[in-house]
Protein backbone atom coordinates (compact mmCIF):
# COMPACT_ATOMS: atom_id res chain seq x y z
CA UNK A 1 0.00 0.00 0.00
CA UNK A 2 1.09 3.53 -0.63
CA UNK A 3 1.79 5.80 2.33
CA UNK A 4 -1.38 7.86 1.84
CA UNK A 5 -3.39 4.64 1.59
CA UNK A 6 -1.85 3.33 4.81
CA UNK A 7 -2.63 6.51 6.69
CA UNK A 8 -6.19 6.68 5.39
CA UNK A 9 -6.76 3.03 6.29
CA UNK A 10 -5.45 3.66 9.78
CA UNK A 11 -7.75 6.65 10.25
CA UNK A 12 -10.81 4.73 9.11
CA UNK A 13 -10.05 1.83 11.41
CA UNK A 14 -9.94 4.29 14.34
CA UNK A 15 -12.37 6.90 13.08
CA UNK A 16 -14.16 7.47 16.38
CA UNK A 17 -10.83 8.20 18.09
CA UNK A 18 -9.68 10.79 15.56
CA UNK A 19 -13.06 12.49 15.38
CA UNK A 20 -13.07 12.82 19.15
CA UNK A 21 -9.54 14.23 19.13
CA UNK A 22 -10.42 16.72 16.40
CA UNK A 23 -13.53 17.79 18.24
CA UNK A 24 -11.71 18.26 21.53
CA UNK A 25 -8.92 20.25 19.93
CA UNK A 26 -11.08 22.48 17.74
CA UNK A 27 -13.55 23.14 20.53
CA UNK A 28 -10.64 24.12 22.77
CA UNK A 29 -9.67 26.68 20.13
CA UNK A 30 -13.13 28.22 20.16
CA UNK A 31 -14.80 26.34 17.31
CA UNK A 32 -18.15 24.55 17.45
CA UNK A 33 -18.46 20.99 16.18
CA UNK A 34 -21.84 19.59 15.13
CA UNK A 35 -22.71 16.10 13.89
CA UNK A 36 -25.57 15.84 11.43
CA UNK A 37 -27.10 12.98 9.53
CA UNK A 38 -27.79 14.44 6.11
CA UNK A 39 -27.67 17.48 3.84
CA UNK A 40 -31.30 18.13 4.82
CA UNK A 41 -30.46 18.27 8.50
CA UNK A 42 -27.50 20.51 7.76
CA UNK A 43 -29.66 22.87 5.70
CA UNK A 44 -32.16 23.15 8.53
CA UNK A 45 -29.37 23.76 11.00
CA UNK A 46 -27.83 26.52 8.91
CA UNK A 47 -31.16 28.15 8.23
CA UNK A 48 -31.85 28.28 11.94
CA UNK A 49 -28.40 29.69 12.57
CA UNK A 50 -29.00 32.37 9.94
CA UNK A 51 -32.30 33.28 11.51
CA UNK A 52 -30.72 33.57 14.97
CA UNK A 53 -27.92 35.76 13.60
CA UNK A 54 -30.47 37.78 11.62
CA UNK A 55 -28.91 37.01 8.26
CA UNK A 56 -31.36 36.86 5.40
CA UNK A 57 -31.15 33.69 3.31
CA UNK A 58 -32.27 34.15 -0.26
CA UNK A 59 -33.02 30.61 -1.42
CA UNK A 60 -34.36 29.43 1.94
CA UNK A 61 -33.46 26.04 3.37
CA UNK A 62 -33.85 24.49 -0.08
CA UNK A 63 -31.24 26.83 -1.53
CA UNK A 64 -28.86 25.98 1.28
CA UNK A 65 -29.41 22.28 0.76
CA UNK A 66 -28.42 22.60 -2.89
CA UNK A 67 -25.27 24.46 -1.92
CA UNK A 68 -24.43 21.81 0.64
CA UNK A 69 -24.77 19.07 -1.94
CA UNK A 70 -22.38 20.93 -4.22
CA UNK A 71 -19.87 21.60 -1.50
CA UNK A 72 -19.92 18.16 0.03
CA UNK A 73 -21.51 15.69 -2.36
CA UNK A 74 -22.11 12.14 -1.22
CA UNK A 75 -19.00 10.08 -1.79
CA UNK A 76 -20.88 7.68 -4.06
CA UNK A 77 -22.24 10.50 -6.20
CA UNK A 78 -18.81 12.04 -6.39
CA UNK A 79 -17.17 8.83 -7.54
CA UNK A 80 -19.88 8.18 -10.08
CA UNK A 81 -18.80 11.45 -11.57
CA UNK A 82 -22.12 13.14 -11.10
CA UNK A 83 -21.66 16.78 -11.91
CA UNK A 84 -21.09 19.01 -8.94
CA UNK A 85 -20.09 22.61 -9.40
CA UNK A 86 -16.68 23.37 -8.01
CA UNK A 87 -17.46 25.97 -5.41
CA UNK A 88 -15.08 26.23 -2.54
CA UNK A 89 -16.68 28.96 -0.63
CA UNK A 90 -20.03 30.58 -1.00
CA UNK A 91 -21.54 33.36 1.00
CA UNK A 92 -25.14 33.39 2.05
CA UNK A 93 -26.30 36.93 1.57
CA UNK A 94 -23.57 39.52 1.96
CA UNK A 95 -20.85 38.47 4.31
CA UNK A 96 -23.09 37.25 7.08
CA UNK A 97 -22.64 33.51 6.89
CA UNK A 98 -20.07 31.79 4.72
CA UNK A 99 -20.31 28.16 3.67
CA UNK A 100 -17.29 26.11 2.65
CA UNK A 101 -16.45 22.45 2.05
CA UNK A 102 -13.37 21.02 3.76
CA UNK A 103 -10.64 19.14 1.93
CA UNK A 104 -9.22 17.63 5.12
CA UNK A 105 -9.60 17.85 8.88
CA UNK A 106 -6.51 17.55 11.03
CA UNK A 107 -7.08 15.99 14.42
CA UNK A 108 -3.98 16.98 16.40
CA UNK A 109 -4.13 20.64 15.35
CA UNK A 110 -7.90 20.91 15.44
CA UNK A 111 -7.60 22.32 11.94
CA UNK A 112 -9.88 22.50 8.93
CA UNK A 113 -8.10 22.52 5.59
CA UNK A 114 -9.84 24.31 2.73
CA UNK A 115 -8.24 23.93 -0.67
CA UNK A 116 -9.28 25.58 -3.87
CA UNK A 117 -8.84 28.63 -6.04
CA UNK A 118 -10.56 31.43 -4.16
CA UNK A 119 -11.01 29.80 -0.81
CA UNK A 120 -10.49 32.87 1.32
CA UNK A 121 -12.43 35.30 -0.85
CA UNK A 122 -15.54 35.51 1.32
CA UNK A 123 -15.00 37.07 4.73
CA UNK A 124 -18.08 36.14 6.66
CA UNK A 125 -18.93 36.95 10.22
CA UNK A 126 -19.97 33.35 10.77
CA UNK A 127 -17.96 30.67 8.99
CA UNK A 128 -19.64 27.32 8.50
CA UNK A 129 -17.58 24.42 7.12
CA UNK A 130 -19.08 21.16 5.92
CA UNK A 131 -17.12 17.93 5.97
CA UNK A 132 -17.86 14.25 5.66
CA UNK A 133 -16.83 12.41 8.82
CA UNK A 134 -14.21 10.47 6.84
CA UNK A 135 -12.08 13.52 6.05
CA UNK A 136 -10.00 13.49 9.21
CA UNK A 137 -6.23 12.88 9.30
CA UNK A 138 -4.21 12.24 12.46
CA UNK A 139 -1.49 14.91 12.38
CA UNK A 140 -0.59 18.14 10.69
CA UNK A 141 2.56 16.58 9.26
CA UNK A 142 0.38 14.21 7.25
CA UNK A 143 -0.34 17.20 5.04
CA UNK A 144 3.10 16.67 3.53
CA UNK A 145 1.70 13.68 1.66
CA UNK A 146 -1.95 14.69 1.34
CA UNK A 147 -1.88 18.34 0.33
CA UNK A 148 -0.05 17.61 -2.94
CA UNK A 149 -2.85 15.23 -3.89
CA UNK A 150 -5.56 17.87 -3.90
CA UNK A 151 -3.64 21.06 -4.67
CA UNK A 152 -5.38 24.39 -5.14
CA UNK A 153 -3.78 27.82 -5.32
CA UNK A 154 -5.44 29.09 -2.15
CA UNK A 155 -5.14 26.74 0.81
CA UNK A 156 -6.40 27.71 4.26
CA UNK A 157 -6.03 26.08 7.61
CA UNK A 158 -8.75 27.29 9.94
CA UNK A 159 -7.85 26.63 13.54
CA UNK A 160 -10.73 28.46 15.18
CA UNK A 161 -12.61 31.75 15.04
CA UNK A 162 -10.77 35.07 15.47
CA UNK A 163 -8.80 35.27 18.70
CA UNK A 164 -8.56 37.97 21.33
CA UNK A 165 -6.99 41.08 19.85
CA UNK A 166 -7.62 40.13 16.23
CA UNK A 167 -9.31 42.76 14.11
CA UNK A 168 -10.87 40.49 11.50
CA UNK A 169 -11.71 36.89 10.75
CA UNK A 170 -14.94 35.05 11.56
CA UNK A 171 -16.48 35.67 14.94
CA UNK A 172 -17.86 32.16 14.97
CA UNK A 173 -16.62 28.95 13.37
CA UNK A 174 -18.90 25.94 12.92
CA UNK A 175 -17.73 22.59 11.66
CA UNK A 176 -20.64 20.44 10.50
CA UNK A 177 -19.63 16.80 10.31
CA UNK A 178 -21.94 14.96 7.96
CA UNK A 179 -22.63 11.27 8.23
CA UNK A 180 -24.70 11.01 5.04
CA UNK A 181 -24.48 7.21 4.87
CA UNK A 182 -20.77 7.09 5.64
CA UNK A 183 -21.11 5.16 8.87
CA UNK A 184 -22.95 2.50 6.86
CA UNK A 185 -20.15 2.37 4.31
CA UNK A 186 -17.76 1.97 7.20
CA UNK A 187 -19.70 -1.01 8.50
CA UNK A 188 -19.60 -2.65 5.09
CA UNK A 189 -16.36 -4.63 4.80
CA UNK A 190 -16.38 -4.53 1.03
CA UNK A 191 -17.08 -0.85 0.70
CA UNK A 192 -15.19 0.59 3.64
CA UNK A 193 -12.09 1.27 1.56
CA UNK A 194 -14.05 3.72 -0.57
CA UNK A 195 -13.91 6.10 2.37
CA UNK A 196 -10.16 6.37 1.87
CA UNK A 197 -10.92 8.56 -1.13
CA UNK A 198 -9.42 12.03 -0.83
CA UNK A 199 -11.38 13.37 -3.81
CA UNK A 200 -8.35 14.11 -5.88
CA UNK A 201 -10.56 13.63 -8.91
CA UNK A 202 -8.04 11.62 -10.89
CA UNK A 203 -10.40 8.80 -11.66
CA UNK A 204 -13.38 10.92 -12.62
CA UNK A 205 -14.73 11.00 -16.14
CA UNK A 206 -13.12 13.73 -18.18
CA UNK A 207 -10.01 13.54 -16.04
CA UNK A 208 -9.14 9.97 -16.82
CA UNK A 209 -9.56 10.40 -20.57
CA UNK A 210 -8.57 6.86 -21.48
CA UNK A 211 -5.24 6.77 -19.68
CA UNK A 212 -4.65 4.29 -16.91
CA UNK A 213 -5.33 5.81 -13.51
CA UNK A 214 -3.78 4.79 -10.25
CA UNK A 215 -5.60 5.95 -7.19
CA UNK A 216 -3.27 7.58 -4.65
CA UNK A 217 -5.02 5.83 -1.78
CA UNK A 218 -5.11 2.47 -3.56
CA UNK A 219 -8.83 2.22 -4.11
CA UNK A 220 -9.51 -0.51 -6.64
CA UNK A 221 -10.81 1.79 -9.36
CA UNK A 222 -11.73 -1.11 -11.57
CA UNK A 223 -14.16 -2.37 -8.98
CA UNK A 224 -15.72 1.03 -8.46
CA UNK A 225 -18.70 0.43 -10.73
CA UNK A 226 -19.55 -2.67 -8.79
CA UNK A 227 -19.07 -1.05 -5.42
CA UNK A 228 -21.09 1.98 -6.37
CA UNK A 229 -24.09 0.13 -7.65
CA UNK A 230 -27.20 0.84 -5.73
CA UNK A 231 -28.14 -2.40 -4.04
CA UNK A 232 -30.48 -4.28 -6.34
CA UNK A 233 -33.58 -5.52 -4.55
CA UNK A 234 -32.24 -8.90 -3.61
CA UNK A 235 -35.31 -11.05 -4.30
CA UNK A 236 -35.97 -9.79 -7.81
CA UNK A 237 -32.47 -9.98 -9.17
CA UNK A 238 -31.98 -13.08 -7.06
CA UNK A 239 -34.42 -15.31 -8.92
CA UNK A 240 -33.60 -13.72 -12.26
CA UNK A 241 -29.96 -14.51 -11.89
CA UNK A 242 -30.62 -17.96 -10.51
CA UNK A 243 -32.56 -18.69 -13.68
CA UNK A 244 -29.87 -17.05 -15.77
CA UNK A 245 -27.15 -19.03 -14.02
CA UNK A 246 -29.09 -22.22 -14.60
CA UNK A 247 -29.34 -21.49 -18.32
CA UNK A 248 -25.76 -20.33 -18.73
CA UNK A 249 -24.43 -23.48 -17.16
CA UNK A 250 -26.17 -25.60 -19.82
CA UNK A 251 -25.09 -24.98 -23.42
CA UNK A 252 -28.13 -26.66 -24.98
CA UNK A 253 -30.55 -24.74 -22.86
CA UNK A 254 -28.58 -21.60 -23.66
CA UNK A 255 -28.91 -22.26 -27.37
CA UNK A 256 -32.63 -22.85 -26.97
CA UNK A 257 -32.99 -19.61 -25.01
CA UNK A 258 -31.23 -17.84 -27.86
CA UNK A 259 -33.85 -19.17 -30.28
CA UNK A 260 -36.61 -18.01 -27.94
CA UNK A 261 -35.00 -14.59 -27.85
CA UNK A 262 -35.23 -14.44 -31.63
CA UNK A 263 -38.84 -15.55 -31.64
CA UNK A 264 -39.98 -13.04 -29.08
CA UNK A 265 -37.69 -10.10 -29.68
CA UNK A 266 -39.44 -6.72 -29.63
CA UNK A 267 -38.23 -3.49 -31.10
CA UNK A 268 -39.27 -1.58 -27.99
CA UNK A 269 -36.34 -3.05 -26.07
CA UNK A 270 -34.12 -0.42 -27.61
CA UNK A 271 -31.54 -3.00 -28.62
CA UNK A 272 -30.83 -3.91 -32.21
CA UNK A 273 -32.49 -7.06 -33.47
CA UNK A 274 -30.54 -10.25 -32.82
CA UNK A 275 -28.71 -11.53 -35.84
CA UNK A 276 -30.73 -13.99 -37.86
CA UNK A 277 -28.30 -16.75 -37.04
CA UNK A 278 -26.07 -17.11 -34.03
CA UNK A 279 -22.33 -17.38 -34.26
CA UNK A 280 -22.46 -21.06 -33.40
CA UNK A 281 -24.94 -21.78 -36.18
CA UNK A 282 -22.80 -19.94 -38.70
CA UNK A 283 -19.70 -21.69 -37.43
CA UNK A 284 -21.31 -25.12 -37.77
CA UNK A 285 -22.46 -24.28 -41.30
CA UNK A 286 -19.06 -23.00 -42.26
CA UNK A 287 -17.36 -26.15 -41.02
CA UNK A 288 -19.65 -28.49 -42.93
Amino acid at each position, binding site marked *: MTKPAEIRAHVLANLDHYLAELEKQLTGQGGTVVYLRSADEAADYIELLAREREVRVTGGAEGIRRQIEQLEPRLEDYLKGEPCVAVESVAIEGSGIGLAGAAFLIADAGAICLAGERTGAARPRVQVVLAGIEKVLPRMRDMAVFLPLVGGSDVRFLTGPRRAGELDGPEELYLILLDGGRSELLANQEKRDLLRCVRCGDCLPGQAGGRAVTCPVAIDIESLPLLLREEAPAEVSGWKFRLWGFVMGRPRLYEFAGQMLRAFWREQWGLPAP*AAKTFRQLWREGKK
Partner: protein
Amino acid sequence: MTKRVSLFVTCVVDQLLPRAGLAMAEVLTQVGCEVEFRPAQTCCGRPAYEAGCREQAKLVGEHFLASFADAEFIVTPSTSCASMLRKRLPELSGAAARETAARVWEFSRFLVEIAKVDDVGARFEHSVVVQDAEGLNCGHRLLSHVKGLEQLPLNDWTGSGNLWGRSEPVTPALVNRIVASGASHVIGMETERLLLLRGALQRGGHAIETVHLAEVLASR
Protein backbone atom coordinates in the same frame (compact mmCIF):
# COMPACT_ATOMS: atom_id res chain seq x y z
CA MET B 1 5.17 -22.64 -33.95
CA THR B 2 1.48 -22.55 -34.68
CA LYS B 3 -0.57 -21.18 -31.83
CA ARG B 4 -3.72 -23.03 -30.93
CA VAL B 5 -6.48 -20.55 -30.27
CA SER B 6 -9.80 -21.36 -28.72
CA LEU B 7 -12.44 -18.69 -29.37
CA PHE B 8 -14.51 -17.43 -26.50
CA VAL B 9 -16.93 -15.36 -28.52
CA THR B 10 -19.03 -14.27 -25.51
CA CYS B 11 -22.78 -14.53 -25.37
CA VAL B 12 -23.19 -11.07 -26.84
CA VAL B 13 -21.28 -11.86 -30.00
CA ASP B 14 -22.83 -15.28 -30.28
CA GLN B 15 -26.35 -13.96 -30.16
CA LEU B 16 -26.11 -10.45 -31.51
CA LEU B 17 -22.86 -9.80 -33.35
CA PRO B 18 -21.92 -13.12 -34.98
CA ARG B 19 -20.12 -11.36 -37.81
CA ALA B 20 -17.59 -9.97 -35.35
CA GLY B 21 -16.90 -13.52 -34.15
CA LEU B 22 -16.42 -14.84 -37.67
CA ALA B 23 -14.16 -11.92 -38.55
CA MET B 24 -12.08 -12.59 -35.46
CA ALA B 25 -11.64 -16.24 -36.48
CA GLU B 26 -10.67 -15.13 -39.97
CA VAL B 27 -8.01 -12.69 -38.79
CA LEU B 28 -6.55 -15.20 -36.35
CA THR B 29 -6.35 -17.85 -39.07
CA GLN B 30 -4.81 -15.28 -41.39
CA VAL B 31 -1.98 -14.60 -38.97
CA GLY B 32 -1.26 -18.28 -38.72
CA CYS B 33 -3.19 -19.54 -35.72
CA GLU B 34 -5.11 -22.75 -35.54
CA VAL B 35 -8.61 -21.72 -34.50
CA GLU B 36 -11.26 -23.79 -32.77
CA PHE B 37 -14.69 -23.06 -31.30
CA ARG B 38 -16.01 -25.01 -28.35
CA PRO B 39 -19.80 -25.16 -28.45
CA ALA B 40 -20.02 -25.84 -24.72
CA GLN B 41 -19.23 -22.18 -23.98
CA THR B 42 -21.87 -19.71 -22.88
CA CYS B 43 -21.06 -16.58 -20.89
CA CYS B 44 -18.30 -15.26 -18.62
CA GLY B 45 -20.65 -14.46 -15.73
CA ARG B 46 -20.14 -10.73 -15.77
CA PRO B 47 -23.82 -9.65 -15.82
CA ALA B 48 -24.39 -11.40 -12.51
CA TYR B 49 -21.11 -10.18 -11.03
CA GLU B 50 -21.88 -6.59 -11.86
CA ALA B 51 -25.35 -6.90 -10.41
CA GLY B 52 -23.80 -8.15 -7.20
CA CYS B 53 -24.93 -11.81 -7.55
CA ARG B 54 -21.60 -13.40 -6.85
CA GLU B 55 -22.92 -16.92 -6.38
CA GLN B 56 -24.41 -17.09 -9.85
CA ALA B 57 -21.37 -15.39 -11.37
CA LYS B 58 -19.18 -18.03 -9.79
CA LEU B 59 -21.39 -20.83 -11.11
CA VAL B 60 -21.26 -19.57 -14.68
CA GLY B 61 -17.56 -18.78 -14.32
CA GLU B 62 -16.95 -22.37 -13.35
CA HIS B 63 -18.82 -23.56 -16.40
CA PHE B 64 -16.40 -21.43 -18.41
CA LEU B 65 -13.42 -22.98 -16.63
CA ALA B 66 -14.68 -26.47 -17.33
CA SER B 67 -15.26 -25.68 -21.01
CA PHE B 68 -11.78 -24.28 -21.52
CA ALA B 69 -9.72 -26.35 -19.09
CA ASP B 70 -7.17 -27.54 -21.66
CA ALA B 71 -7.19 -24.62 -24.12
CA GLU B 72 -3.84 -23.09 -25.02
CA PHE B 73 -4.96 -19.53 -25.77
CA ILE B 74 -8.48 -18.33 -25.11
CA VAL B 75 -9.23 -15.28 -27.25
CA THR B 76 -12.27 -13.07 -26.81
CA PRO B 77 -13.50 -9.93 -28.58
CA SER B 78 -14.56 -8.17 -25.38
CA THR B 79 -12.20 -6.24 -23.11
CA SER B 80 -14.66 -6.31 -20.24
CA CYS B 81 -15.26 -10.05 -20.47
CA ALA B 82 -11.51 -10.62 -20.65
CA SER B 83 -10.99 -8.60 -17.51
CA MET B 84 -13.90 -10.35 -15.79
CA LEU B 85 -12.27 -13.70 -16.50
CA ARG B 86 -8.69 -12.70 -15.76
CA LYS B 87 -9.25 -10.66 -12.64
CA ARG B 88 -12.62 -11.33 -11.08
CA LEU B 89 -13.03 -15.02 -11.65
CA PRO B 90 -9.94 -15.93 -9.59
CA GLU B 91 -11.38 -13.82 -6.79
CA LEU B 92 -14.54 -15.88 -6.88
CA SER B 93 -13.19 -19.33 -7.60
CA GLY B 94 -9.74 -19.19 -6.09
CA ALA B 95 -6.35 -20.37 -7.27
CA ALA B 96 -7.73 -23.05 -9.57
CA ALA B 97 -9.24 -20.40 -11.80
CA ARG B 98 -6.08 -18.33 -11.96
CA GLU B 99 -4.23 -20.71 -14.19
CA THR B 100 -6.94 -20.91 -16.84
CA ALA B 101 -7.77 -17.23 -16.46
CA ALA B 102 -4.21 -16.25 -17.28
CA ARG B 103 -4.66 -17.83 -20.70
CA VAL B 104 -7.54 -15.50 -21.59
CA TRP B 105 -6.64 -12.77 -24.06
CA GLU B 106 -8.58 -9.91 -25.48
CA PHE B 107 -8.42 -10.16 -29.28
CA SER B 108 -6.35 -7.03 -30.05
CA ARG B 109 -3.88 -7.68 -27.27
CA PHE B 110 -3.46 -11.25 -28.39
CA LEU B 111 -2.58 -10.09 -31.89
CA VAL B 112 -0.04 -7.53 -30.73
CA GLU B 113 1.48 -9.21 -27.68
CA ILE B 114 1.27 -12.92 -28.47
CA ALA B 115 0.97 -13.28 -32.22
CA LYS B 116 3.24 -10.23 -32.52
CA VAL B 117 1.57 -8.67 -35.52
CA ASP B 118 0.69 -5.01 -35.88
CA ASP B 119 -0.21 -5.08 -39.53
CA VAL B 120 -2.71 -7.76 -40.51
CA GLY B 121 -2.82 -6.50 -44.09
CA ALA B 122 -6.31 -5.10 -43.88
CA ARG B 123 -7.84 -2.47 -46.14
CA PHE B 124 -10.93 -0.52 -45.10
CA GLU B 125 -11.64 2.50 -47.25
CA HIS B 126 -14.04 4.49 -45.15
CA SER B 127 -14.05 7.49 -42.87
CA VAL B 128 -14.66 6.30 -39.38
CA VAL B 129 -14.87 7.34 -35.77
CA VAL B 130 -13.31 4.99 -33.28
CA GLN B 131 -14.59 4.13 -29.87
CA ASP B 132 -11.89 4.23 -27.24
CA ALA B 133 -11.69 1.25 -25.00
CA GLU B 134 -10.88 1.70 -21.38
CA GLY B 135 -8.34 -0.69 -20.03
CA LEU B 136 -5.72 -2.52 -22.02
CA ASN B 137 -6.57 -2.68 -25.64
CA CYS B 138 -4.30 -2.54 -28.66
CA GLY B 139 -7.02 -1.65 -31.14
CA HIS B 140 -5.60 1.73 -32.03
CA ARG B 141 -2.25 0.25 -32.82
CA LEU B 142 -3.77 -2.31 -35.16
CA LEU B 143 -5.99 0.27 -36.82
CA SER B 144 -3.04 2.52 -37.55
CA HIS B 145 -1.84 -0.06 -40.08
CA VAL B 146 -5.15 -0.50 -41.86
CA LYS B 147 -4.95 0.93 -45.37
CA GLY B 148 -7.45 3.45 -46.64
CA LEU B 149 -8.85 4.16 -43.18
CA GLU B 150 -9.61 7.78 -42.43
CA GLN B 151 -10.09 8.36 -38.75
CA LEU B 152 -12.19 11.41 -37.91
CA PRO B 153 -11.84 13.12 -34.56
CA LEU B 154 -14.68 12.83 -32.12
CA ASN B 155 -13.93 15.03 -29.19
CA ASP B 156 -13.63 13.51 -25.77
CA TRP B 157 -15.38 10.33 -26.49
CA THR B 158 -13.87 7.77 -24.24
CA GLY B 159 -14.89 4.79 -22.33
CA SER B 160 -16.27 1.37 -22.91
CA GLY B 161 -19.52 -0.19 -21.90
CA ASN B 162 -18.13 -1.81 -18.85
CA LEU B 163 -17.90 0.95 -16.31
CA TRP B 164 -20.98 2.77 -15.20
CA GLY B 165 -20.73 6.44 -14.61
CA ARG B 166 -17.17 6.64 -15.81
CA SER B 167 -17.67 6.23 -19.51
CA GLU B 168 -19.79 8.41 -21.66
CA PRO B 169 -23.24 6.89 -21.89
CA VAL B 170 -24.87 6.51 -25.28
CA THR B 171 -26.80 9.75 -25.18
CA PRO B 172 -28.57 11.57 -28.00
CA ALA B 173 -25.75 14.11 -27.75
CA LEU B 174 -23.18 11.43 -28.44
CA VAL B 175 -25.21 10.18 -31.39
CA ASN B 176 -25.39 13.74 -32.71
CA ARG B 177 -21.65 14.13 -32.40
CA ILE B 178 -21.10 10.93 -34.32
CA VAL B 179 -23.51 12.02 -37.04
CA ALA B 180 -21.90 15.46 -37.19
CA SER B 181 -18.46 13.94 -37.65
CA GLY B 182 -19.51 12.79 -41.11
CA ALA B 183 -18.21 9.26 -40.56
CA SER B 184 -19.72 6.37 -42.46
CA HIS B 185 -18.70 3.77 -39.88
CA VAL B 186 -18.23 3.56 -36.15
CA ILE B 187 -15.56 1.13 -35.07
CA GLY B 188 -16.06 -0.40 -31.67
CA MET B 189 -13.46 -2.05 -29.49
CA GLU B 190 -16.09 -3.12 -27.05
CA THR B 191 -18.99 -5.30 -28.04
CA GLU B 192 -21.60 -4.04 -25.62
CA ARG B 193 -21.17 -0.39 -26.32
CA LEU B 194 -21.11 -1.14 -29.98
CA LEU B 195 -24.48 -2.76 -29.55
CA LEU B 196 -25.96 0.14 -27.62
CA LEU B 197 -24.70 2.52 -30.29
CA ARG B 198 -26.07 0.40 -33.07
CA GLY B 199 -29.47 0.48 -31.38
CA ALA B 200 -29.35 4.23 -30.91
CA LEU B 201 -28.23 4.90 -34.49
CA GLN B 202 -30.87 2.60 -35.93
CA ARG B 203 -33.60 4.18 -33.85
CA GLY B 204 -32.49 7.62 -34.97
CA GLY B 205 -32.72 6.46 -38.58
CA HIS B 206 -29.04 7.14 -39.28
CA ALA B 207 -27.29 5.18 -41.96
CA ILE B 208 -24.01 4.94 -40.06
CA GLU B 209 -22.74 1.41 -39.73
CA THR B 210 -21.33 -0.06 -36.57
CA VAL B 211 -18.56 -2.58 -36.93
CA HIS B 212 -16.32 -4.38 -34.50
CA LEU B 213 -12.55 -3.96 -34.73
CA ALA B 214 -12.26 -7.56 -35.92
CA GLU B 215 -14.50 -6.88 -38.91
CA VAL B 216 -12.29 -3.99 -39.97
CA LEU B 217 -9.16 -6.09 -39.62
CA ALA B 218 -10.74 -8.88 -41.65
CA SER B 219 -11.70 -6.69 -44.58
CA ARG B 220 -9.47 -6.64 -47.62
